[in-house]
């Protein structure tokens, strides 16, 4: 199953070029959609496919599209969220680098379904060299008549523009992204109203992740039902998993949802086991924001069932014993990794990336970082550990956007599963050989 939906033909030399992509069946899905389907037919296929948002939230894409304000006479926008910044996640980068036309094809079909005449790809500023790749691919597509006015004589017109960000994780949050696209600070908006009603420039807008939109082409080609037959239960289709950390084969893998986690970590087709023959200690399965799980709980659920790569299975046991599929950023820690140090490191990240707009996140992330810094550097107390749990609880759910949760969960889960390690850093500083290096 690997590499057979989103990453089809990725191995073909020159697949980044329009001509090669086209020669390998590219843009046939656009032809099918624009020539033989109405916009609502396309939406219906996407709904039938069971596709869920691949940016992290897992919200059903068809349902999100259905929220778009149909009574408004304002222009509609499709915005592609390519602000991939979640630590551990590098799947969209891979897709755009190697298969830019897969994304553009998905954008055309999705914009057609939504009635959007303009699409912006908001790409994180640090992906400098990808901007050129995307611009070139868009220009080629234009020249070949798949973009611009009256595409394939369908009467449907579309322009796609690349918009680089400038260094802000928060702009991956869809309303912060829209603010940023309007040239402002990336402060998330208060919701409601949601972008489907008041998005870019106050117009009805759909914001979808790169991988989500790239899946639309294959869904139209094979049909929603066929796509829904891939995967398991409500986790339909394939998912790109970016694997990193202490494994033999880090990289991006397209998996069929439902693959056992154990096979993904140890299988030769995937991560190929833990580096240097070490033991698996813990995994953050869905990007740095989701709860970390110790080896036993990532391999099987608390009920003793094998843990699978699906939205549902990874969440089994809720936060007490489970985690989330999130964005598919799979970070593996071996026996030598220091959980305290990593928790401090990630908290520093969230402190740096908080927009500072709402008080629990602005103050809470910085507070947690300072405490974790002390614990990691030998100045912590046992009381600090309980204080961290309390701060995380006071942030969680009380902020404007999910960055608050994203900052709280790693701390809460690390203490939940590795409290002893935190206590040791307090009572026996220096015991951990990773402590106080730099």
């Amino acid at each position, binding site marked *: 199953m690997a590499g057979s939906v989103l990453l089809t033909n990725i191995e073909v030399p020159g697949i980044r070029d329009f001509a090669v992509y086209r020669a390998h069946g590219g843009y046939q899905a656009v032809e099918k959609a624009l020539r033989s389907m109405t916009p609502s037919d396309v939406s219906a296929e996407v709904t039938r496919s069971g596709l869920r948002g691949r940016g992290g939230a897992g919200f059903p894409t068809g349902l999100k599209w259905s929220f778009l304000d149909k009574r408004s006479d304002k222009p509609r926008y499709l915005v592609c969220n390519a602000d991939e910044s979640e630590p551990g996640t590098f799947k969209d980068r891979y897709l755009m680098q190697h298969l830019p036309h897969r994304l553009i094809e998905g954008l055309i079909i999705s914009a057609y379904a939504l009635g959007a005449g303009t699409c912006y790809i908001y790409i994180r500023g*640090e992906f400098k060299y990808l901007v050129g790749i995307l611009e070139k691919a868009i220009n080629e597509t234009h020249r070949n008549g798949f973009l611009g006015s009256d595409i394939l004589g369908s009467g449907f017109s579309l322009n796609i523009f690349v918009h680089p960000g400038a260094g802000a994780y928060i702009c991956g949050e869809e309303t912060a992204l829209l603010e940023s696209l309007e040239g402002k600070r990336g402060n998330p908006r208060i919701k409601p109203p949601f972008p489907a009603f008041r998005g870019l420039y106050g117009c009805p807008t759909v914001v979808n992740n790169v991988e989500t939109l790239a899946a639309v082409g294959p869904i139209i080609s094979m049909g929603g039902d066929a796509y829904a037959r891939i995967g398991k239960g409500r986790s339909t289709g394939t998912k790109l998993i970016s694997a990193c950390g202490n494994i033999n084969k880090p990289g991006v893998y397209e998996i069929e949802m439902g693959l056992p986690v154990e096979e993904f970590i140890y299988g030769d087709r995937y991560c190929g086991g833990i580096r240097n023959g070490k033991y698996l200690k813990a995994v953050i399965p869905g990007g740095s924001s989701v709860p970390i799980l110790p080896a036993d709980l990532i391999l099987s659920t608390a009920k003793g069932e094998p843990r699978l790569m699906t939205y549902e299975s990874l969440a089994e046991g809720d936060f007490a014993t489970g985690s989330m599929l999130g964005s598919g950023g799979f970070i593996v820690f071996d026996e030598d990794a220091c959980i305290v140090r990593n928790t401090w490191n990630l908290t520093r990240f969230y402190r740096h990336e908080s927009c500072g707009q709402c008080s629990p996140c602005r103050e809470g992330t910085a507070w947690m970082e300072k405490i974790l810094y002390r614990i990691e550097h030998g100045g912590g107390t046992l009381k600090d550990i309980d204080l961290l749990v309390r701060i995380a609880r006071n942030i969680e759910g009380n902020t404007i956007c999910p960055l608050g949760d994203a900052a709280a969960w790693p701390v809460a889960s690390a203490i939940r599963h590795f409290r002893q390690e935190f206590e040791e850093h307090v009572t026996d500083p220096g015991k951990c050989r990773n402590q106080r290096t730099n």
Partner: protein
Amino acid sequence: MEGTHKISHPQFVREGKQFSFSAATMLKVRQLIARYPQGRQKSALLPVLHIAQEESGGSLTVDIMDYVADLLGLQPIEVYETATFYSMFYLEKTGKYVIEVCRTGPCSIVGGDQIRQYLREVLEIGPGETTPDGLFTLREVECLGSCGTGPVMQVNTRFFENLTPRRVDQILEELREYANKNNPDDIRWQDQFC
């Protein structure tokens, strides 16, 4: 920001140094503005600031930001607010090459901490500082989104993966050579967009 509590943002001054885009750059900027609806030219602010920063040799000054504000019909404070929000806009003079090395978790656990330490040692500067010869500015930045090939760093428009101390040595040597040869291989980012 680690373990600190003093926040000292400098107060910047208008130096009154004339800045303007060349005719060729202006053409590009006009094209960029045209990507957004009439009256929404503020949308072009981030890309235009990127171009301005590159044109001016790597950083933004008050005069440049005022020029951009004027160009896009904004109040200067709107540009300052936006420019100070994003980590890729540099408000202080940088070296010819800005080395941005990742300091976030996934890179850290595969040797990133050692690479950061190594860069500090060989360049003999701390994060945020520039070498006395004006060649390198070292910045320790958050996740660059390539965790599978960590440790990683970015130098101006170029990206380097799977770093080891030896590889870092090679890269620095290469960059020093480029600098002497007046950058034959340097790619301007702005040439890649539109």
